């Protein structure tokens, strides 16, 4: 299987402080990869480095093309969409405009964008009910669903999810991972997820990477990872 | 490897003493030898420093922006000038009254600040500064029936042994301005180093959290506005003591901008910043105003005003990038290489060595 995203020796940080100290990881085509790590380990930094939101050094290959120095809008054009931490809702825009905003990079006519918007309203009926409301009035769970739909409106090949379960009730979190699992299984979408809630994430994962203080300290399939005692104790809690 | 000096230790006190003694020596040197015009310039720089200190208390430490400080200074200057000339008040009494009037007016202007932040507040205070010259002109037309107001013509008190001639008056105003500068500096320093000072900074950093910690937001913000305004009034009163005539243009918006630029140049939210900034601003401005008309390489016949103010505007913009912490920040980063003052260690039975190590990192 070919690697869709291949990251080699990636360094990144804020100002002089280097948070990522040469990480290596890859996401294969059609697979779900999960990054586990404590706060401050550099999970969000990894996501922002891949999306080009911060200065970084090192090689990032996406479908064989180097995107390690590209700007965020080029990376979205290339086919990587990100659901940022805290959902990044356009709170003053309506739910429908949020979805339209997600389709910003598409050259398509309005018709095909409208068709896709209708499709997402079928997937998430609660969004359809609030179509013309400002997105800021949605509950946390609804906003998270909207954020995922918005990211997918750009028709990406790879979806990055930064702590999607943060601040969500357990039942909503389960629903969310069900959706992500379905997207992967049915539509073949490749996904890279950063999560604290390891138990749920591992259920849909094919590959797991453990990130500690800016470096990848362990990697493998979920079952391999679950056998690693220290990792299990720190992230899975049993 | 720099020398480490603990705060409030004997070495620290010695260092402070040397610093104060040097400054005092410089002041005595000027007072004894310099021409009255030079003393006059230092007096003006001190006046600007007091205004910048006033703005620093409000903007630097409390995070409330004001472009209306020229109005407070103007209000104090007019109160002083009018009460001394028309009602023959004692000038020293007029000092107290001017500051009190500014305190009250400052609290009043501070009221909208309870609801407004950032740019909104800046605009409201800008409006105050904009309306002031109009009000001043009306006042002069209606009440004084002239276009100008006479200054206070402050005489040196007899105990000073100074005569009422130009040179002695200059010496007197020089020492007076230094004394008032020390008072203003002392007030702001004492506030900053106390429970109240911490609460001011807390309000600046995070209002909601400060309120939850028990800080009374409306009271803290309006009183800070009031104190800052009365310190600006101090600067205004001092201006009225120096000038022979005051008019509506003495305290325009540009004066407020000058206070702000001086503060930024020196370094906001530091104690020394406004003083250093005011002196640098004043003397650079002076230098440019004297020399710019001689520059032949500039096109055409230039009035000296625009060159100086253009360059100063440009310098301050440049400073935001080169030295965002102002002159004081620049100086600190250099002296750090020689000596660092570290806080006193924590006192606790379980603390062996309180983290002197960590205070070295910024």
């Amino acid at each position: 299987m070919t690697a869709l995203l291949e990251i080699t020796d990636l360094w990144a940080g804020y100002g002089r402080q280097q948070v990522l100290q040469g990480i290596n990881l890859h996401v294969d085509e059609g697979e779900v990869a999960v990054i586990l790590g404590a706060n401050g380990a550099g999970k969000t930094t990894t996501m922002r480095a891949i999306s080009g939101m911060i200065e970084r050094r090192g090689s990032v290959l996406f479908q064989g093309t180097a995107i390690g120095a590209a700007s965020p809008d080029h990376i979205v054009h290339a086919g990587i969409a990100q659901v940022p931490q805290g959902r990044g809702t356009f709170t003053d825009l309506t739910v429908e405009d949020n979805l339209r905003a997600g389709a910003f990079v598409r050259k398509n006519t309005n018709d095909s964008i409208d068709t896709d918007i209708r499709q997402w309203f079928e997937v998430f009926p609660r969004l359809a009910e609030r179509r013309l409301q400002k997105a800021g009035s949605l509950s946390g769970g609804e906003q998270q669903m909207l954020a995922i739909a918005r990211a997918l409106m750009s028709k990406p090949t790879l979806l990055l999810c930064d702590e999607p379960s943060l601040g969500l009730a357990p039942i909503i979190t389960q629903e969310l991972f069900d959706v992500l699992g379905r997207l992967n299984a049915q539509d073949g979408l490749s996904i890279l997820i950063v999560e604290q809630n390891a138990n749920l994430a591992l259920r849909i994962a094919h590959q797991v990477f453990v990130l500690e203080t800016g470096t990848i300290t362990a990697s493998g399939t979920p079952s391999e990872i679950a056998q690693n005692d220290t990792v299990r104790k720190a992230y899975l809690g049993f | 490897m720099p020398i480490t000096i603990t705060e409030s230790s004997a070495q620290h006190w010695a260092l402070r003493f040397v610093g104060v003694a040097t400054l005092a020596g410089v002041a005595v040197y000027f007072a004894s030898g310099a021409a009255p015009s030079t003393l006059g310039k230092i007096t003006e720089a001190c006046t600007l420093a007091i205004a910048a200190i006033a703005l620093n208390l409000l903007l630097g430490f409390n995070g409330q922006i004001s472009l209306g400080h020229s109005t407070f200074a103007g209000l104090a200057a007019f109160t002083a000038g009018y009460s001394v000339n028309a009602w023959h008040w004692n000038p020293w009494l007029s000092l107290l009254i001017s500051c009190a009037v500014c305190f009250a007016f400052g609290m009043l202007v501070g009221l909208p600040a309870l609801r407004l932040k950032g740019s909104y507040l800046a605009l409201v205070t800008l409006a105050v500064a904009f309306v002031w010259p109009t009000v001043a002109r009306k006042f002069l037309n209606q009440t004084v029936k002239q276009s100008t107001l006479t200054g206070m013509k402050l005489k040196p008190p007899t105990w000073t042994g100074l005569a009422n001639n130009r040179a002695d008056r200059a010496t007197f105003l020089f020492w007076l301005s230094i004394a008032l500068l020390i008072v203003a500096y002392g007030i702001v320093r004492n506030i900053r180093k106390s429970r109240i000072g911490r609460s001011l900074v807390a309000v600046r950093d995070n209002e909601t959290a400060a309120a939850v910690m028990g800080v009374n937001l409306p009271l803290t913000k309006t009183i800070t506005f009031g104190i800052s305004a009365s310190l600006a009034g101090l600067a205004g009163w001092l201006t009225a003591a120096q000038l022979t005539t005051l008019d509506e243009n003495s305290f325009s918006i540009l004066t407020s901008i000058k206070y702000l630029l001086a503060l930024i140049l020196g370094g906001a939210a530091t104690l020394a910043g406004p003083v250093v900034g005011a002196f640098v601003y004043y003397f650079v401005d002076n230098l440019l105003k004297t020399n710019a008309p001689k520059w032949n390489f500039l096109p055409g016949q230039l009035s000296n005003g625009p060159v100086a103010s253009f360059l100063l505007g440009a310098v301050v913009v440049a400073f935001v990038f080169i030295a965002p912490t102002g002159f004081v920040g620049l100086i600190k980063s250099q002296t750090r290489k020689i000596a660092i003052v570290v806080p006193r260690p924590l006192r606790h039975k379980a603390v062996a060595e309180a983290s002197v190590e960590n205070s070295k990192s910024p």
Partner: protein
Amino acid sequence: MGDILQYFLNGLARGSIYSLVALGLVVIYQGTGHLNFAQGEMSLFATFGAWWFNDHGVPLWLSILLAASFAFVGGGAIEFGLIRPAAKKSPFAVVVVTIGLFQAFNSLSGLLFKGAATGLSFGTIFPNKPNDFFRLPGGAVWRYENIGVLVTVLIITALLFTLFRKTKVGLAMRMVANNADSAKLSGVPTNKVLMLSWGLATAIGTIGCALVAGINTNVSLGTMFGVFLLASAAAILGGLDSPLGAVVGGLSLGVIESFVTNYPKDWWASTYIGADTATAAAFVIILVVLLVRPSGLFGSARVERV
């Protein structure tokens, strides 16, 4: 009755200019959360440029268009070269930079254009001979010049609204305004959008300044002081993030100003404040509005989550 209508019409003319400059402020504020204190002086500088072109034989309407185009480029360049790097430091740094620019541009105008301090004569593109007016019932006159200004402002406003609501560029601007990070992650080249905002705002401001100069028949260093202040007051009144608010705020401020100046001819304060009451009264009104609705009449109140 005719008087009232007359004051209303005069107020509309002046107010439409406040609306225009306020729109420029809103375009920038929406995109960046910054208030450009130098907006008036940047536009003034460009308007002096228009005067220079006109003085060198270029027709006035073309001079104004040329100046507005230069202002567009210049505004974008200032965003790129000064504002963006300052914004990386702190929001306060941007305030300082715009105030520094205020001083720098005002002095630069005085430096480059001889006679700018006292005023240079400036023409108008609308007919403004003494008898160029409609007579309305009741005796009020509506000058063609004032109609022209109002119509110009309405056209520009309509164009801006179409841009915001109907185009992809407008969507991008609204996205950046609401959440710059998410806009980037949705593929919006935010840097270009911000430059565009600054360019647009400066160009709009320049047209506003040229119109003011036309009504005053001259342009001087002090031309934009009051206009900027009332325009920003209008923007605040309407809510800094609402273009509609800017227009309504500007027009109502112009009308209020006109009435306060003319109507209560002999009231008690008129000896003290007289015609200048207008500015003061305008600010009292704004203050009252802000105390009741801190985000303006049309501004969106953001609920802070703690």
